[in-house]
């Protein structure tokens, strides 16, 4: 009796000193991210779970503002040699970090050199390419991967007696009926992402020279093409007909009318699913991003991912890199991925995670949640892997500007795209110059 009590006490004491000892030795790593609001809370939950799951590493997530602000904070910190271990960088900023050899520790190397296994074939196809270098080596670890999908208000569509459109031709047929039913047919958030970048992927159109920027530093943007001009001319006429609502360049301003049932369909991100579940007080469905049958001749191509990836900064010590690798392994594990996928609507990044979500019957309960990943898994074409363009944050700014003017009726689509081409090429040329003499010491 006494003996067992003694043993218990002893083992408890040993355990607690061991825990204290390891807590002191735990390596702290930092993670700067751009996930505000509910997403930020989910990030905190993942970090807490990781910290609780082992005792040698402690991860500290910090919200650094919008995607752009987080990237700039990372840039400034790197220049001052104060960089965090992990930074979240969004799709438009990918070229900035991937084209700068020496800034990031490629995730493929990081995992292999720090006690984890890595096989890029574990990742789903649409995710694998986007953050990889010219040779296909993954530089960034995809984190919140999303893709544009169409959300529709079931009741409103039923009232008008229509089905969600597969193609833009079908959209033109149903839009007048929705208008007769007293709603605007469509709104859309983030025109550069959905109707420029993914428009090219969905129709397998080339987006820039140098193989969309993957095989070298691109200097020519190819947005000024007849398909784009025609699409935007159409959109402008849809807007004038009252079929399409353009509420400015902000994401939220275009989404709110859908939540308020003023708009029947909304093009957003598959990652909006979790948020819509709480804010939209009606039954909604999800389907693929429509395409022009007239352009693809009946063929359908995948979209590519948006969202952001995690990059490990170079120049950290071995213990920290091991922790970063541990965290990446934890984060891409099916259990974490399924949690993240279900909580937020971002797609699972590995095949194993996708299968795990299927196996537990998640998509039987929530068929809408599967649309994003199915669309990413559609057969690809020559130009559907993604893009890698420098100063792309500013190029998007140019697009936002011109699209505002276009929908406001100040300019037509041809003018908009000739400006986008001229300013885009100028920015690409400038970016190429910044890379001019690699590895020349600063100052």
């Amino acid at each position, binding site marked *: 009796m006494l003996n067992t009590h003694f043993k218990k006490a002893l083992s408890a004491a040993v355990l607690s000193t061991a825990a204290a000892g390891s807590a002191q030795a735990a390596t702290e790593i930092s993670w700067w991210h751009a996930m505000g*609001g509910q997403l930020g*809370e989910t990030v905190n939950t993942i970090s807490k779970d990781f910290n609780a799951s082992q005792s040698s590493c402690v991860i500290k997530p910090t919200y650094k*503002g919008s995607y752009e602000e987080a990237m700039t904070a990372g840039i400034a910190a790197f*220049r*001052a040699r104060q960089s965090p271990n992990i930074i979240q960088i969004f799709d438009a900023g990918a070229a900035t970090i991937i084209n700068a050899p020496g800034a990031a520790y490629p995730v493929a190397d990081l995992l292999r050199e720090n006690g984890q296994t890595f096989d890029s074939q574990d990742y789903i196809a649409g995710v694998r390419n986007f953050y990889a270098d010219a040779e296909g080596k993954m530089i960034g670890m995809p984190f919140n991967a999303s893709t544009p999908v169409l959300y529709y208000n079931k009741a409103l569509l039923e009232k008008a007696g229509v089905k969600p459109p597969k193609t833009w031709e079908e959209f033109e047929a149903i839009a007048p009926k929705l208008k007769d039913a007293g709603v605007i047919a469509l709104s859309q958030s983030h025109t550069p992402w959905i109707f420029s970048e993914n428009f090219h992927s969905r129709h397998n159109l080339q987006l820039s020279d140098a193989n969309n920027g993957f095989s070298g530093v691109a200097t020519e943007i190819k947005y000024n093409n007849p398909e784009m001009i025609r699409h935007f001319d159409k959109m402008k006429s849809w807007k004038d007909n009252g079929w399409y609502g353009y509420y400015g360049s902000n994401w939220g301003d*275009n989404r709110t009318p859908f939540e308020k049932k003023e708009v029947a369909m909304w093009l*957003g991100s598959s990652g909006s699913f979790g*948020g819509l579940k*709480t*804010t939209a007080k009606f039954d909604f469905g999800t389907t693929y991003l429509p395409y022009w049958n007239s352009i693809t001749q009946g063929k359908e191509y995948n979209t590519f991912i948006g969202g952001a990836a995690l990059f490990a900064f170079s120049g950290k010590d071995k213990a920290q890199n091991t922790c970063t690798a541990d965290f990446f392994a934890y984060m891409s594990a099916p259990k974490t991925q399924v949690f993240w996928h279900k909580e937020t609507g971002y797609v699972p990044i590995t095949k194993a995670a996708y299968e795990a979500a299927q196996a537990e019957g998640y998509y039987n309960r929530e068929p809408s949640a599967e649309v994003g990943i199915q669309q990413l898994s559609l057969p690809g074409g020559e130009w559907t892997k993604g893009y890698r363009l420098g100063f792309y944050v500013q190029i998007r700014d140019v697009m936002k500007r011109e699209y505002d003017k276009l929908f406001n009726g100040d300019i037509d689509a041809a003018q908009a795209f000739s400006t986008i081409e001229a300013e885009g090429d100028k920015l690409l040329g400038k970016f190429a110059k910044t890379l001019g003499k690699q590895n020349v010491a600063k100052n």
Partner: protein
Amino acid sequence: MRTKVSFLDHGILWAGVIFLLMPLWIAFASSTHTAEYIANEGVQFWFGDNFINTYSGLLNGTSSIFLEKGDNNVTGTGAWIMLKNSLILGFGFAIGKIIFSMLAAYAIVYFRFPLANLFFWIIFASLLLPLEVRIIPSYEIVASMGLVNTYTGLILPLIASATATFFFRQFYLSVPEELIEAARLDNAGPVRFFLDILLPLSKTMIAAIFIIMFVVGWNQYLWPILMTTDSSFNTLLLGIKNIVNVIDEGKIPAYNRVFALSVLAVTPPVLIVIFFQRWFIKGLVETEK
């Protein structure tokens, strides 16, 4: 002799008062309702009964500025922490600035020494370029000194501007020459002259500059974003910035707590300006001369 004050004069003044007061009134009144009520009914002009709930949740960080999900385990940085940091920033900035500027202005006005002119122009050159447009080089320097995530790193670079030095210089120049002559006759040295004569004379000036600088420090917006990576250094203005980001991304904020955070972010500097308005106005107007 004064002209008669007409009804119209008061009418115009009241129109001005209402125009200025209305936005903050709406923010305060709305903050006392629930988020759902505002989302459905629009912003409010009169008070609701959710005052204590809104503010206590916000201050303690038990409810975030975003709409919560069903399971309520959401916590944010408590507004108490942000309030504390904003106060440290406001006070630290104002006090530091006053001490450094007073001494520098004293040297510039009351001493003849080699290089004085050069120093003067170097200091005044800092009026030329606001922090917003030199922010990345500034950050690099602060970071290389290891001052990221410290109050020193937050405050010192902001002090690098000559506004207060300029105010003190103008003030010293208006101090009568006779005083320094009298001090000399008394055989008082520069330290005694400063402590016994100039400092007491500057009281109003110091109070005025303190108020102005406290407001400037409190309202810092861009610099703290870059300088702090630890949420325990968050200021109220940083909280405001985060709200705007999240609204742009399409998340619905908890309107009542957003308005409450705005109210918290303006109350301390507004109270200081109101309570010390006499000094504040006197100081402002005198520096203009």
